[in-house]
């Protein structure tokens, strides 16, 4: 998909008619839409999603009531209040894909009725023109959704057309993040058919097993019954886990909604603001604690050695001393000395009789030697200890710093817990009855979330145990069938259904694993290209874990996500999104625009520089919505240097909540931008 043109008529804050021509092609593929906060950058993003998918809400509107969310330009509706005529808001998008051009248009009518905004969706119209110039048009919403979805799937769109909130969500170590990534990867793979085939063969297997159960006897019947019960419980648990996931998501949304309601009560607004910031810190710290504990767990083997370091050092010195004295390995074997003593004569012919000096000397020598096995063990121990003693210090320092860090984080968490408790009391005991009620509701939701998370962990553990049990019972079943020679047709059918289900599950796992690895490799590549020099010293790889959480590893291959800065997090997300896009394109060049709404907020100058230098080369089209605080002369200079920036639009306020879109020559952009010092 390559975007050509977007036009807006009375859409949101854009009163009247406005047009944006997007840069595309080899001569330039970067468009910058520039405006101060509140000027309508997100309005452009909204227009794009409205036109393509008919969506009126963005993720950031989750808590906004329908009657507060209007797409028709308000001043225009106000101007027509008297004549009672509705205002038409229209968005038109022209784009190309796979050799065809598409013209999509959607409109909505709006008017003011007293203080209320009444809106009526007028639907859309899509015109498709093929390479020969033949056109077809449709107004059928299902057909439009099918055509647009075939070009850019609804579920995948957020990975190409995204806002700052999306970037933020991807980096949070939460179930929401895992869900996001899992959704992205699954959509990319288009594995619905495979998953449905697994379900079907599994149903078939269960049906055949139930048939077998009715005719089997003795031990075999007992084993098949056990397997059936395990299957039933597993299905129950899987369904419950899915339901828990949904309940957690809803509880999270409900909590957000209550927070918004509470926010409206001015009297406690400051407390609420403080609570939000403390809870955010609490989440970060809890994530850090988890990572530190994981780190400690990874080091357990090495750190346990520190407990015996003194003893180990002493043993090493003792063995080493004996080694220095050439007692180990002994120059002459003990069994040889024993033979000489029993024969009473040395190799050189000297007589060795008890009571003589020769006898005393050879006995001394004998006592200093040890048998071969002990000697080998001592030498192995010496080698091992000489290896590990060099790590005592490193491990000691690393462990101490880990423990100190853990203590600091835990302390801070304790302080936050106490502060939160006090704040909750203040909010709950507020004189406003509605505030107290809302806060009570909030606490109930929080308790529910904790309970659900506990149940989730328990169910996951039980499921793992059941899987283990199932393979043991399955083995037993095979043994019994083999012993009893039960290979009738029905059991063969059941065995085939089981083998096919397992094969398809293995392929599913292999396939998703390969894609996760590919995304991880590509994300790491982009991440390293984007990171500033200082970060490159520490950060190394991005990995998509099997549970679809994203992790970043440091140069020592330790998880580091909890310690990275907000800017590094953002870079990590952008690298991940670019890697997803790359995976979607396969071996080809991805014909898809990257539409980023204010992505530079928390980035350092070097990070911005890297992003501006690299992204135009990674994608076929880059549309950047940027604020005056994130895009200045410095950024403009870098972007001009790529030779790919050819379109620049300014979102200019015209008063009374309206904005106009003004095209500006890229060469003249500096006149509108802050200089480098100001931008820093």
């Amino acid at each position, binding site marked *: 998909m390559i975007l050509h043109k977007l036009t807006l008529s009375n859409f949101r804050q854009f009163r009247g008619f406005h047009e944006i021509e997007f840069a595309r092609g080899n001569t330039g593929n970067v468009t910058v839409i520039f405006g101060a906060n509140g000027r309508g950058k997100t309005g452009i993003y909204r227009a794009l999603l409205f036109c393509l998918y008919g969506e009126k809400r963005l993720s950031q509107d989750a808590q906004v009531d329908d009657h507060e969310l209007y797409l028709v330009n308000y001043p225009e509706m106000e101007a027509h209040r008297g004549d009672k005529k509705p205002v038409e808001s229209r968005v038109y998008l022209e784009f190309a894909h796979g050799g065809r051009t598409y013209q999509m248009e959607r409109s909505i009518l709006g008017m003011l009725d007293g203080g209320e905004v009444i809106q009526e969706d007028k639907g859309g119209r899509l015109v498709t023109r093929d390479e020969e110039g033949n056109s077809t048009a449709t107004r059928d919403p299902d057909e439009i959704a099918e055509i647009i979805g075939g070009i850019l799937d609804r579920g995948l769109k957020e990975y190409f057309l995204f806002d700052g909130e999306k970037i933020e969500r991807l980096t949070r170590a939460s179930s929401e993040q895992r869900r996001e990534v899992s959704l992205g990867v699954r959509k990319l793979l288009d*594995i619905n058919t*495979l998953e449905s*085939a697994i379900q079907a063969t599994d149903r*078939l297997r269960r049906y055949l097993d139930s048939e077998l159960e009715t005719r089997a006897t003795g031990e075999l019947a007992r084993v098949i019954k056990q397997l059936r019960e395990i299957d039933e419980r597993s299905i129950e648990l899987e369904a419950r886990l899915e339901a828990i996931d949904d309940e957690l998501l809803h509880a999270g949304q409900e909590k957000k909604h209550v927070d918004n309601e509470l926010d409206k009560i001015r009297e406690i607004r400051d407390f609420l603001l403080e609570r939000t910031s403390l809870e955010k810190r609490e989440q970060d710290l809890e994530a850090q604690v988890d990572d530190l504990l994981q780190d400690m767990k990874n080091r357990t083997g090495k750190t346990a050695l520190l407990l015996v370091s003194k003893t180990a050092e002493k043993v090493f010195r003792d063995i080493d001393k004996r080694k220095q004295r050439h007692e180990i390995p002994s120059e002459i074997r003990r069994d040889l000395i024993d033979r000489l003593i029993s024969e009473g004569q040395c190799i050189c012919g000297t007589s060795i009789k008890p009571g003589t000096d020769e006898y005393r000397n050879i006995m001394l020598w004998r006592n200093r030697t040890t048998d071969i096995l002990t000697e080998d063990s001592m030498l192995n121990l010496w080698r091992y200890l000489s290896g590990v003693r060099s790590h005592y210090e490193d491990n000691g320092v690393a462990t101490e710093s880990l423990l100190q860090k853990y203590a600091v984080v835990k302390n801070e968490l304790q302080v936050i817990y106490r502060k939160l408790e006090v704040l909750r009391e203040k909010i709950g005991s507020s004189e406003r009855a509605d505030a107290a009620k809302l806060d009570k509701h909030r606490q109930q939701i929080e308790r529910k979330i904790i309970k659900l998370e506990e149940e989730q962990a328990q169910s996951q553990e039980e499921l793992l145990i059941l899987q283990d049990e199932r393979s043991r019972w399955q083995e037993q079943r095979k043994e019994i069938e083999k012993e009893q020679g039960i290979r009738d047709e029905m059991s063969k059918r059941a065995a*085939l259904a089981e083998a096919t289900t397992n*094969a398809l599950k293995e*392929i599913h796992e292999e396939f998703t694993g390969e894609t996760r690895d590919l995304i991880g490799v590509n994300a790491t590549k982009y991440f390293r290209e984007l990171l500033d020099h200082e970060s490159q010293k520490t950060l190394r790889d991005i990995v998509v874990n099997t549970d679809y959480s994203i992790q970043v590893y440091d140069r020592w291959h330790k998880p580091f996500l909890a310690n990275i800065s907000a800017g590094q997090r953002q870079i990590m997300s952008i690298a991940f999104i670019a890697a997803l896009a790359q995976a979607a394109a*396969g071996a080809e060049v991805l014909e898809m625009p990257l539409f980023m709404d204010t992505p530079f907020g928390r980035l350092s100058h070097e990070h911005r520089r890297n992003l501006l230098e690299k992204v135009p080369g990674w994608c076929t089209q880059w549309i950047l919505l940027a604020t005056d605080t994130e895009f200045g002369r410095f950024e403009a200079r870098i972007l001009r240097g790529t030779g790919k920036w050819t379109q620049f639009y300014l979102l200019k306020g015209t008063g009374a909540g309206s904005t106009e879109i003004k095209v500006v020559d890229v060469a003249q952009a500096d006149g509108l931008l802050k200089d480098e010092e100001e931008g820093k």
Partner: protein
Amino acid sequence: MTEIHQIIINKLKKYPRDVQALAKHALELSESMPASSVAEQLKGVVRQITKEKEATE
């Protein structure tokens, strides 16, 4: 990734022929039917594959 079907078929090659045959049927039917209907259809398919295998053994 429209070549997903081909990738799965290629990955199936390392499994026994009867597993490949049943899996291919399951995949083809799943493209146009829900899992419950596919499972019904597969009852006949699995019987046929098992019989054919017995005949060749």
